């Protein structure tokens, strides 16, 4: 369970998150909203890239904001990025291993097994020893997911992981995302503009708009909430 309380982020005159109070119950959770709603800002706060002006985030009774930025991955907060940020000069195996050796425990042998398991899980075993710069954008997306789930993460933040993927690959990605909580015990928070992916993966969803929480609850209910529809298509009265 991830408890966010009165979280506010300010960039100059812009309030990117405005007193957001929200509890992610665990499992696969969606986080949706129009562009500029504050979804990635929330991820950046959780990753330690952005310091909020107020509020707190508690995970398993630990205040996340008290943990140094680079220690959060080791503590269990992992993520992907909207723009793929794999290490181009390293192999697929080394990319995933880099995260494991800095953010997870284990001997050399355990590390190799763990990394190989994850690569098999996301379907990258065939390209294990290929240098990433030689691979497709599709492979890079799955490498990012593998990097986020290797070891024993507590929270996996997926920031538009399906961006640029064809439909059949999105289905494959959905299968992987659905399996992550069961495989790792982690809470997954999925940000994506593809509502079918969010519906396919997430039992519970929160909606942000202009830095404020609009709705939260079971995905099916939230997606039919009038306030959510208004946030996406615009409020006719406004």
């Amino acid at each position, binding site marked *: 369970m991830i408890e966010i309380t009165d979280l506010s982020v300010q960039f100059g005159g812009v309030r990117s998150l405005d007193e957001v109070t929200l509890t992610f119950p665990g499992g696969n959770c969606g986080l949706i909203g129009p562009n500029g709603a504050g979804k990635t800002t929330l991820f950046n706060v959780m*990753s330690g890239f952005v310091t909020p002006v107020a509020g707190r985030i508690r995970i398993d009774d630990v205040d996340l904001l008290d943990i140094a930025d*680079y220690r959060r*991955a*080791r503590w269990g907060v*992992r993520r992907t990025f909207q723009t793929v*940020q794999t290490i181009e*000069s390293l192999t697929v195996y080394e990319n995933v291993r*880099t995260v494991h050796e*800095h953010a997870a425990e284990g001997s050399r042998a355990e590390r190799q097994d763990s990394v190989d398991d994850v690569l098999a899980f996301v379907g990258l075993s065939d390209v294990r020893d290929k240098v990433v710069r030689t691979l497709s954008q599709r492979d890079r997306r799955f490498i990012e997911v593998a990097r986020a789930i290797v070891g024993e993460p507590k929270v996996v933040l997926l920031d538009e992981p399906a961006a640029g993927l064809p439909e059949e690959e999105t289905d494959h990605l959905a299968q992987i995302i659905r399996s992550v909580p069961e495989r790792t015990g982690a809470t997954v928070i999925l940000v994506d503009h593809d509502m079918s992916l969010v519906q396919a993966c997430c039992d519970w969803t929160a909606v942000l708009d202009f830095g404020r929480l609009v709705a939260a609850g079971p995905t099916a209910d939230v997606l039919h909430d009038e306030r959510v529809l208004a946030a996406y298509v615009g409020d006719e009265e406004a």
Partner: protein
Amino acid sequence: MVGRVFSHRAFQPTIAAGLMVFALFAMPSIFDATWIFNFTQMAIYSMVAASVGMLYGRVGLVSLGQVAPYGIGAWVTIRLAFATDIPYPILLAIGGGVAAIIGLLIGLPALRVSGLYLALVTLMLAVGVEVILFRLKFANGGPGFNGLALTMSDRAPVPRPAFAEGDIAYFRFVVIVACVIFMLAVAFLASKPGRAWASVHQSEPSALASGISVTRYKLMAFGLAAFMAGVAGGLYGAHVQWSIGVDQFNRQAALFLIAVVLMGGIGSLWGALLAAFFATILLPFLTQNVIGHQFWNDFALTIFGIGLMINLIQTTRAMDKKGLLE
């Protein structure tokens, strides 16, 4: 520059070993004393070039200050060589160690600045070290802290190790040390720090999200690079032996170093060898053996400058294509 990352992959051990065997056993019988002297300088310079290439190509840190640990390593090793009987390999390690400490100090501003600002800060630090070295001067057999001889007749050459007093033996010693330093670099690049550096170079946010302490690994890179340059400095003193000045360690040398390293290529350790070849073999060859006039020395330097400009233009275009100039 993200696509061009300093890698150990192209540095195949068999080719490197073959080259070392050629250098140790074939080159002394092929080349005369003058060229052996130049190739000794090339082996020394390749270590400094590798340190710059590693910082820039692998970690993305543009340091113009690598001549500083090079000079500090030279000063410390020369002074201790005159004052003590410590075996030469240990002297080199001490010189490299002291240079590494200075390298860490140079690395501290790197935690706050990057790109052009880092280049300027490191250049200023190099200028500071140049001024200090100019005031201290390099020991030449005299007493006191500086080790400066009071009269011309008291001056002595920087001692070489007993097992490598001749030019050819010293050349072989330098080649072996250079190989050890290159192997050290490969060992780092192929292990946990090397992967962390590649991650930092690619994207600092991504590195942080992977649990990598960007600060710690940047400092480690500066420390290792300074150690490599410091060891090279220690070898330089006993290579030249007489009348060592700050010419190799001044601001012009700093800019020349980054120019030839970019010309050689920052994609692999071979680029460092190529950079050293440009600086210590090609230039003397052009000026002494082919063209034979000081004017052409300046001309060759101009060619290096043009090459650097082309490199920078290509780099800028590559960055623009990747949208990194916004």
